[in-house]
């Protein structure tokens, strides 16, 4: 029988001989590997998932006429066709706005015309009391900003009569919206209604865009838009892009340090088990040395045992980590995070490394003096 077979035979018996202690080490390794695998799976998907999430937090690119004031400060609504013609997949939502001054009774108020279907896509965090307006074609309803509603004494279901010069507009309040922004002072309704009301057919004040991707990808979309619309200002909302970049960086850093911490904790678990195991194995090692076993040959057995433990722990941890990543994906991002198989070798390599480092006490067995052990010291 070749030596390798005897090696595997002893290895198999070693694994079976100290099941209790090895099980503790295996649990430590599997737990560590599961968290690593889950976080690595999440990390690989995090950028995509997070940038998707960011896109529900408002516009990050604004297109507007160059500042100059008056009629000249309005853009032709044809800009929307130009944007659509670019077929940029990263543009998640496009919301034009036309702002006009109006009066409700004697109270002045800003009336904003927009596309509600797009607004709701990019501002899912807006808090609406009453009913939301989600159809672009809805010419009957409006959303009233919370501050404006208080000033005008409006509530969901009430009617509001707006006047601008000779033009009148009658709307029903669907809901009161709280955004924390300028919209809190405005009444928002259908774009075409506002264009007719103000006599500004086919004009918009600005267009807000929600663009998905990393900060460099957003800059690239901005560049393409600026090329297509040279007469307009195309500006990324830098604070948002920078904040997104910072958040992504922080999440990546957190994942990295969490993995490092978890691996250290796993290693300490393995270390404790292996230290106890080393005490149990002193007699066996003394005997093996007395029988002519060299230190490297004996240590190879123990390191192979630790390596096998690491590989099994890594594989089991990977599978558990996939389940954990799914849970994280569903509960935190509301999406399914699929298993990334490139994480498998990384998890196994990390776990085997941790198992080998954690088995350091077994290496001290190399110093065992057989004469002392065989005397029973």
């Amino acid at each position: 029988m070749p030596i390798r077979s005897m090696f595997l035979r002893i290895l198999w018996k070693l694994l079976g001989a100290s099941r209790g202690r090895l099980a503790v080490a295996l649990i430590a390794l599997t737990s560590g590997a599961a968290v690593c695998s889950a976080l690595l799976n999440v990390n690989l998907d995090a950028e995509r998932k997070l940038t998707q999430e960011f896109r529900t937090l408002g516009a990050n690119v604004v297109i507007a006429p160059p500042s100059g004031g008056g009629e000249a400060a309005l853009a032709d609504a044809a800009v929307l066709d130009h944007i659509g013609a670019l077929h940029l997949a990263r543009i998640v939502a496009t919301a034009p706005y036309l702002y006009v001054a109006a009066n409700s009774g004697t109270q002045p108020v800003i009336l904003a015309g927009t596309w509600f279907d797009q607004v709701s896509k990019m501002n899912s965090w807006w808090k609406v009391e009453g009913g939301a307006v989600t159809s672009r074609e809805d010419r009957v309803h409006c959303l009233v900003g919370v501050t404006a509603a208080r000033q005008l004494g409006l509530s969901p279901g009430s009617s509001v009569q707006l006047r601008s010069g000779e033009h009148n507009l009658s709307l029903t309040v669907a809901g009161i919206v709280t955004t924390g922004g300028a919209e809190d002072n405005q009444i928002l309704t259908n774009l075409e209604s506002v264009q007719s009301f103000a006599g500004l057919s086919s004009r918009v004040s600005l267009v807000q865009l929600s663009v998905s991707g990393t900060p460099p990808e957003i800059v690239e979309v901005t560049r393409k838009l600026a090329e297509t619309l040279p007469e307009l200002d195309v500006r990324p909302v830098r604070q948002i892009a920078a904040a997104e970049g910072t958040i992504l960086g922080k999440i990546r850093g957190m994942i990295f340090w969490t993995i490092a911490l978890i691996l250290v904790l796993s290693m300490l678990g393995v270390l404790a088990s292996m230290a106890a195991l080393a005490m149990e194995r002193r007699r066996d090692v003394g005997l093996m040395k007395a029988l002519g076993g060299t230190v490297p040959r004996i240590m190879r057995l123990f390191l192979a045992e630790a390596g096998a433990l690491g590989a099994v722990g890594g594989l089991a941890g990977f599978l558990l980590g996939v389940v954990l990543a799914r849970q994280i994906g569903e509960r935190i991002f509301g999406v399914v995070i699929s298993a990334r198989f490139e994480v498998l070798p990384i998890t196994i390599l990390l776990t085997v490394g941790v198992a080998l480092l954690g088995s350091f006490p077994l290496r001290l067995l190399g110093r065992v003096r057989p004469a002392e052990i065989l005397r029973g010291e």
Partner: protein
Amino acid sequence: MAPVVQVEQLEKRFGDVRALDRVSFEVEPGEWIAIMGPSGSGKTTLINILGGLDHPTGGRVVVDGLEIGNLGERELTRYRADKIGFVFQQFHLVPYLTALENVMLAQYFHSITDEKEAAEALKRVGLGDRLDHVPAALSGGEQQRVAIARALINQPKLILADEPTGNLDEANEGVVLKLLRELHEAGHTILVVTHSQAIGNLADRRVELEHGRLARIVSPSLAKD
């Protein structure tokens, strides 16, 4: 014929304690030597040095032409694998390996394993039906017989046995002594540390130690005459 063991002015100190003090003797090939003496007389220290488990402090020890006092750890390990077969009072079998695997372990560290040869060695000591038993499932006598099979498996130049019957009942002591006698008759060189006068009388010569010194060398057959 050249002696297989030459011990010249051998000294071993543990701090201030002189465990062996200028001990000299020789062992011819095929001889059965009993090393005897009261507890603390240096018997086990002597056998540990002969087995390459310990280093002498002074003097010379030559086994099969190899001066072992000059060997480093690596060479001593090779020396133990190639030339020595150990039998211990406590048996010292690996508890999670079967009888067969315990014998194969010595083959593994020596060169290559041969399951058939290991099984044959166990059959020779009367354990052909115990190959797959772990030590815990064997009696003391059976465990010692596994240890003897393990000691013989690599055809060592020297069999070193430290109180091989010390942990056995009378029946098993008889079985082990019979095996040692057979090994002796087959031409093996055996050094046995023992307190037992009976074993001492079976040996070709008795090397008697007192306080680390060689007290006398006795040939039991001549003493009887």
